[in-house]
């Protein structure tokens, strides 16, 4: 057993550093400080019996943990409890539901009418002229997204250079809600990778989003990963394909934290351009290292990073993390046994 642990340690730090960097997150960076200090001196009975640090970590996790906090909705504070604020609020309700809401519905309906009446003719009649057709379809998708945003009276500020149609580039962004997609589509008609949904969303996916070059996956199928990875690679190679947008967190987070990025987006052999979405600002830049990219996005949008994978909502953490702790404790015990 000691031979095996020695083998692990002798792996060169520079070789495979990118691999280990991406696969082995530094849990120690994120855990509360002072959790396991390096003890010194000869090994005594009390050192083996004293399991208080491990127990404290477990109790700490029971009482509060960073993963659950990512998905907690931050409650908003009530503000209309005043004698002058309350009547104003009532007036606001009348204006919002009686006047603004019908207006919004109108804008949205208008948008859909224009979109559908232009999209299907373009899609069917211009079958031969692919380049023109794609250009018009892109424009139309951007149009309907603008209608969506207008119906919410959304004010969106885009910072940084606009994404251009180049091959060998992929865009990554943090994910808070379905609106992220619409907000970004309004600026550029991205192709995204999405979970296949049933029902009318599925219908939308099959018709309109398909033409943008979107890629589907199925979380429950294990072989799916290989197929999707291949499709992604093919997409970024093509010069005419729409820029690809990926949400590496893999799940919606509450816009105050960001969970670990899945590495798929970073293994496509192309430039990675991060996009940060904080219902306040967006920027674009170009980097490679997924940890650094996530750092930049988190800093720019004021989000807190946690070392947990968004998929832990659906599965258990891998044994890697536990083994790391066990290995370090085992090493410490064996080392101190040697000391006199």
């Amino acid at each position: 057993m000691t031979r095996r642990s020695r083998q692990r340690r002798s792996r060169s730090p520079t070789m495979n550093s990118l691999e280990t960097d991406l696969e082995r997150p530094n849990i120690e960076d994120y855990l509360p400080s002072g959790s396991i200090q390096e003890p010194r001196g000869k090994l005594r009975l009390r050192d083996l019996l004293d399991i208080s640090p491990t127990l404290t970590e477990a109790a700490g996790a029971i009482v509060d943990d960073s993963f659950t906090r990512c998905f907690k909705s931050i409650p908003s504070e009530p503000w209309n409890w005043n004698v002058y604020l309350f009547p104003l609020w009532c007036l606001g309700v009348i204006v919002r539901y009686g006047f603004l809401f019908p207006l919004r519905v109108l804008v949205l309906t208008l948008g859909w009418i224009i979109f559908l009446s232009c999209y299907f003719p373009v899609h069917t009649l211009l079958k031969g002229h692919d380049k023109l057709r794609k250009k018009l379809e892109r424009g139309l998708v951007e149009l309907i997204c603008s209608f969506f945003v207008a119906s919410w009276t959304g004010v969106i500020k885009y910072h940084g250079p606009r994404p251009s149609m180049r091959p060998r580039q992929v865009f990554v962004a943090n994910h808070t809600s379905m609106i992220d997609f619409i907000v970004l589509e309004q600026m550029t008609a991205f192709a995204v990778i999405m979970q296949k949904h049933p029902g009318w969303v599925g219908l939308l996916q099959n018709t309109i989003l398909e033409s943008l070059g979107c890629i589907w996956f199925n979380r429950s199928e294990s072989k799916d990963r290989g197929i999707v990875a291949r499709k992604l690679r093919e997409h970024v190679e093509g010069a005419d394909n729409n820029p690809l947008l990926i949400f590496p967190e893999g799940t919606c987070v509450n816009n105050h934290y960001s969970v670990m990025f899945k590495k798929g987006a970073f293994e496509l052999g192309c430039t990675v351009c991060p996009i940060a979405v904080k219902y306040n600002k967006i920027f674009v830049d170009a980097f490679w290292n997924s940890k650094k990219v996530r750092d930049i996005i988190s800093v720019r949008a004021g989000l807190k990073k946690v070392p947990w994978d968004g998929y832990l909502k659906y599965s258990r953490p891998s044994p890697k993390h536990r083994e790391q702790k066990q290995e370090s404790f085992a090493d410490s015990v064996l080392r101190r046994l040697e000391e006199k």
Partner: protein
Amino acid sequence: MGNTSSMLTQYDIEEVQDHCNHSFSQQEIVSLYQRFCQLDRNGCGFISADEFMSVPEFAVNPLSQRLLRMLDGLNFKEFVAFLSAFSSRASLQQKVEFIFKVYDSDGNGKVTFNEMLDILRDLTGQFISKHQREEVLTQVLEEAGYTNDSLLVQADFMKILGNSGLKMEVEVPVD
């Protein structure tokens, strides 16, 4: 207070506080209750092993299985009593008693060589062989004046761990 309703009455808070020997303040108990309800997703009045394991920080802990055995089926009052060893107001004796209970898996008040080996195995995983574990434990036991056949009681644990500045505290977040 058998079913978890979302309301915790003042009477309930005081009852829980009594049960844990005032280890937590009333605000802390309210916070713990919110946490308990958050973890008890199906609202059945206790937190199942699966619900505990859905907290990643808990699931990666080497002693999680042992603790699950102690946490299984606890209602809120017992949950607070369980955590009372980790409060800043808990005495050293309470903390040592908790550690002793973790070791004493058959609950007979005596910790055997094998029970100590089991915990050591949980903490070191596959990175130390069984033989090495036995060797290490035998050696440190002998140096402390015990043998492989010694049965340690709580008083022994108190003697071994008592004067070493045991740090075992968690802070309950109070909004």
